[in-house]
């Protein structure tokens, strides 16, 4: 196409009735896969992905090409060559305030199927899985349908489009744990084990699913592949020359006028997302703060509104881009209650493996509950600060607890007065009932 869209991932989204294989192909679908399979060797595809600058959209922002290059490549006659490799799409979208993958899964399932073909071909994987959040029933049904159509049209199965490449694609619906978003916990769950992050090394690229080299990528990340292949690296890098490559699906929720999702060139500012697209705060409410990329990121404040939403800029502002889903806090909602709510989620979703997370998150919930109920004391703030320190990076087995610490720690910094008011007044200042009754 001469004029590829600036919304490559979402332009074909149809939540009512996603495109069938035929319709998808008519709209230019499977051209990326066609190009990869027919015109490129796997190594060449990998080079394209590396050159594109694509970064993982799951939250960590790790360069995808680099991640894939850790998969050991073997000559065909190498005795150590594993009998299989796996590609897994991480569709276990459970980050609070994040719903971007759902849009892609429900709105354009063939895009992911195509991406899996490209990815699988690149890695030399003959089996691929879509690890899907259990509650995404509609997505499950639509993916199954798309996969069925792809098999029928020989885009899956043996000798795909006469290239000799073989790929089987399965949808696995999760039993539902947030920790399955962590790739090695996801692999354990896929193997039928307890969803607990694995010790690394070995990294999944070397020994992942069933001990074989495995790549796990976020749905949004993978969905970039068809477009990069089809439109080229230059096009991709030029979408947002000043920022990270390509587009990003940003979201916003909270008490704003127009909550939703928007695919924008990477590096749109928070203000653009929140005000130009999200319509700003509901009438009568003021912006108090926001979490830029899901529940496990640090609060940013109104003064950060002009920060571009890319990995580096958000990082400099003191938070993480995460999933790019904004959660907005207004001035009529209690920040302590919000943090408590988040911590309850993390305590609930801790896998129970390492002590800081397993016993630290419920402890934080216990303290926050008391503060929120007006039963806290000044010492509790020290306890919370200690707990933040206790659960910080390097002390835990995976990133869940440090993720839980991020909103808590930043709230203690930015909303310190609110915490103190709860303690001083013996009630929640935002809670009219408590005020009257107290």
């Amino acid at each position, binding site marked *: 196409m001469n004029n590829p869209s600036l919304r490559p991932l979402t332009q074909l989204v149809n939540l009512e009735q996603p495109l069938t294989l035929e319709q998808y192909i008519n709209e230019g679908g499977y051209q990326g896969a066609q190009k990869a399979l027919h015109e490129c060797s796997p190594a060449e595809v990998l080079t394209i992905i590396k050159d594109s600058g694509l970064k993982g959209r799951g939250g960590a922002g790790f360069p995808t090409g680099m991640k894939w290059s850790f998969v050991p490549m073997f000559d065909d006659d190498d005795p150590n060559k594993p009998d299989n490799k796996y590609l897994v799409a991480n569709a276990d979208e459970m980050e609070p305030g994040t719903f971007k993958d759902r849009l892609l899964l429900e709105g354009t399932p063939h895009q992911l199927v195509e991406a899996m073909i490209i990815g699988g071909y690149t890695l030399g994987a003959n089996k691929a899985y879509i690890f899907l959040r259990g509650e995404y029933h509609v997505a499950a049904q639509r993916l199954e349908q798309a996969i069925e159509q792809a098999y029928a049209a020989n885009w899956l199965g043996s000798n795909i489009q006469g290239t000799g490449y073989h790929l089987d694609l399965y949808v696995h619906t999760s039993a539902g744990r947030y920790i399955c978003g962590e790739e090695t916990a996801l692999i354990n769950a896929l193997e039928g084990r307890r969803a607990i992050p694995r010790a690394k090394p070995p990294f999944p690229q070397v020994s992942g699913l069933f*001990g074989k080299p495995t790549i796990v990528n976020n749905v949004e990340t993978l969905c970039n592949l068809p477009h990069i292949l089809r439109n080229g690296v230059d096009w991709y890098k030029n979408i947002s020359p000043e920022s990270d490559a390509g587009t990003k699906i940003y979201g916003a929720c909270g008490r704003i006028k127009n909550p939703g999702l928007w695919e924008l060139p990477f590096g749109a500012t928070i203000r653009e997302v929140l005000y130009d697209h999200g319509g700003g705060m509901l009438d009568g409410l003021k912006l108090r703060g926001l979490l830029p990329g899901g529940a496990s990121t640090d609060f940013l404040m109104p003064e950060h509104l002009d920060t571009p939403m890319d990995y580096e800029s958000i990082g400099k502002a003191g938070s993480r881009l995460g999933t790019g889903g904004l959660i907005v806090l207004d001035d009529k909602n209690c920040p302590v209650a919000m943090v408590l709510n988040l911590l309850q989620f993390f305590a609930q979703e801790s896998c129970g493996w390492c002590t800081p997370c*397993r016993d630290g998150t419920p402890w934080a919930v216990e303290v926050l509950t008391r503060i929120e109920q007006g039963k806290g004391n000044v010492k509790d703030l020290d306890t919370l600060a200690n707990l933040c320190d206790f659960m910080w990076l390097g002390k835990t087995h995976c990133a869940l607890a440090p993720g839980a610490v991020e909103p808590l720690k930043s709230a203690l910094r930015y909303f310190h007065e609110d915490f103190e008011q709860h303690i001083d007044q013996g009630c929640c200042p935002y809670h009219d009932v408590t005020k009257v009754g107290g």
Partner: protein
Amino acid sequence: MSDTDNKVTVYIDDVPYQVNKENNLLAGVLSQKLNLPYFCWHPSMGSVGACRQCAVTQYQDENDTRGRLVMACTTPVSDGMRISLQDSESSKFREQVIGAMMTNHPHDCPVCAEGGECHLQDMTVMTGHSVRDYQGSKRTFTNQNLGDLVGHEMNRCITCYRCVRFYKDYAGGKDFGVYGSRNQVYFGRQRDGNLESEFSGNLIEVCPTGVFTNKVFSSHYTRKWDLQSAPSICAHCSIGCNTSIGERHGSVRRVMNRYNSDINGYFLCDRGRFGIGFVNGQQRIRTTKGINQLSPEKLTSLDVAKSLSHYSGKKFIAIGSARASLEANFYLKNLVGKECFSAGLSIKQMAMAAQHQQLLSQYKPPSLTEIEQSDFIFIIAEDITQTASRMALSVRQALRNASIEKAATIGIPSWQDSAVRTLGGNLVSPLFSLQSTATKLDDVTEQSLLLTIDEIENCLQVLANYVVDKNESTLSAISDTQQTFIKAFIKAYSSAKKPLILSGWSSQSAGVFNGIRQLMSALNNVESHTPNNKQSNSQVGVQNNAENAVKETRLAIMPSQSNSIGLLSLIDDKTLATEQVLTALIEKQADGLIVLEHELTHFTEQELQDISISAEILIVLDHSESKISQIADIVLPVAAVSEGDGHYVNYQGQVQRYHQVHAPILPIQDSWRWLDLLANTLYPNVSYTVSNAKKESKKLHCLADFNQHLLTHFKHWPLDETTPESSTARQTHRATGRTSQSANISVHEPKVTQSYDQSLSFSMEGAKAHATAEMPFTWAPGWNSNQSIIQFQQEVSGELTQKTSNVYLNFNSAEHLISSWPVNDNHERVVSINGQTPLTFSQKTPWYLSDWQANFNPEFQLMAEDNRLFVSPSYAKQQGWNKGQAVKVSFVAGSGILPQIASLFYDENLSDNHAYGTLTGLEHNINNLDISLSEATNDESIDYQQCLKNNQQAARDNKASILESLKSMDQLIPIRMVSGGLDDA
């Protein structure tokens, strides 16, 4: 200086230490005897990084002042690395970890059986955590009934995952797991019920706190610091696991693992841990029978002499025992002379003994540690999971070598437990087995065949021949499945570096041993020629030459009892089989029979009656009632393993000492003491008896004296004990209540038992427990639990700081051995039983029943399931029978075995002529028996069910009354005495 090859310098708080680079940093720190708390790491199970307790600060170099926190257990050691244990960052974090664990811990130490030897207590103190910040409510769980052995108190759990890692990952158990998530993680079974693993008792020691406790110990409880302990050797199989037995007030309370780097390491099987209950059992013989006691006060040696004087100079035949000490057996044999000595083995078993002696003289059996290093294992006709469970645990570890090797190729060290398991997946080193029953290792075998013993013998012959001639036609004599097995075997064997063959006495077949001999010689001879063969196969040759080692196939054969090999060493050409003993008595070639600690269960009722009638006098020395003791004229009560001293010889030929834990209540005394009294009276002309010893103005006060006595009189006596310079205290220095325990009766402090034994004192005074390699218990400052053993190892999981001097019996000097005993073992098949074509039956004895002594434990009796018989589904179909139905098992007429009722089960791997199962009415060492099956009548089933119920009730009653009698004993002032024999002052 090979010792220092693997050592690098690590700076710990700026002090340089030499640390083993092949282990992780935590092990390195602990090896320096520095204190660093930990939970999830276990020296034998490696690291998983779950608890985060062992955090230390690691610095880039000497200029780095900030450093970063690392978990010592998951950090490799590297040369020049700098860490700190004392910095405030890591100290604070370690305290926080305990603080977080304690948020849900119930702090019920005063009522917890673990209190006083709790790793969690120790670690809490070590981190300095003393004030509780958490104000919320605590999580609670429902506990499970895990059977009569292991207690469950989940509220105490700190979620270190050690239990499940031991039970499932390490020991291969299937009925225990981890459930739930977040701070509601539950360790237990899916539902209440007996733990099925033979290693469940290790949960008690593996658990860092009181979630899993010893139920038997708890029912008659005392704190660790009030126990009086002694080093002992397990009396329940021939592995010779080192144990520590604890007693109080004259009753044995419990058995704990005693670390031995070559044998049991950190783990015992449940028979070893809980089997000790027999010493407190109601079947114990506590008084003499047939001896006239003059004084009502006590029995004297004069009484014994008088009662026996009538038989002086008579000719006695004596039967020794595989569960009596080496001393007693040796003395007995020399007393009656080798022409009159029997090992209590049948003709058939004597043929096995002859083969076993031969094998021991040719091949030195590997230790358990060596077994764990094997990369190819072949198990023949022995269900080691039930007969020698601890060895099966080592076999499981050996099977991991394939994944450890694979991990090493990408630089993952073996101690990274979870990483190695992730990488290895289901990869296991090859295990082959030929068995006559299903076994618990079947799930990890590469190939296993279920065959009758005759078929196994045949298959071994063919295998041995094929190894030598590599001729396809050799294989034509066996079935296709056996051919496939042999080919797979040869293929896997050829790439093995440390192959191992295991077998045992369960086959009851000298033919199997003969087959093993041929196979061993074939494999080892072929290997010695391989350098030539390898020239032609350059690729393989280069690889193997580089390793520069000739492949040696090792062999271990498991006899059934603790001193079987000790007894085996005494068997020679003249030794009588039990059939010959019977004939000799009936034909009046001998006047009397002395039976030393042998239950002789393979004698039929008729044969026992013959003995009773023919022998002028039957003298039985034993600790518990048996059929033979009931018909004896004279019964002398002997010390059980906890009450006496002696040596057992394990399957490798290693001689190990067990020590008296507490002085027995007279007239119970060591067998060798009784034998000495018998010698005195019955053999007045023998020069080395006690009366002559007295003439030499020597008293045989203790085992060391006795050993010295034997050494001066017999050139073949293998032991030369040196008396230690100081004696070690059996009590901890914290023992409490010395005067108050009997204050309601007398306020005078009772005198402590005096011991002639120089090595251990019945007191809290004496050398520290770790002064010798034979530690009565293990304790170190700040380390009250069994984990303190690390303080006494040269390095973690290495040898003890006090080295053991291993003594092995020598089977190479051929003069004592049987020169030939025919392997005339052709199993004469019965044509029919009750008009039916017979099946060949193999007994599958569960671990808790496969030892006569352990059988007396009510806890084990309660575990007994109903009789089960496994047949092939096609056989059942031919008979028109269904799974689960009751069948009647009949035996050859004249065998003297009564028919048994059993439930029918299927095993797909059985052939139609073969059955196995557990028939509790049969002796446990039964194999290759002809049986016929018929449908059980309704009445027979009902009777059988009633019988089962009665047995269960009897076991429950037995358990209750043992406990009652033990507790009533506690009310008495402990009897203090001199720990010698009958003539104690």
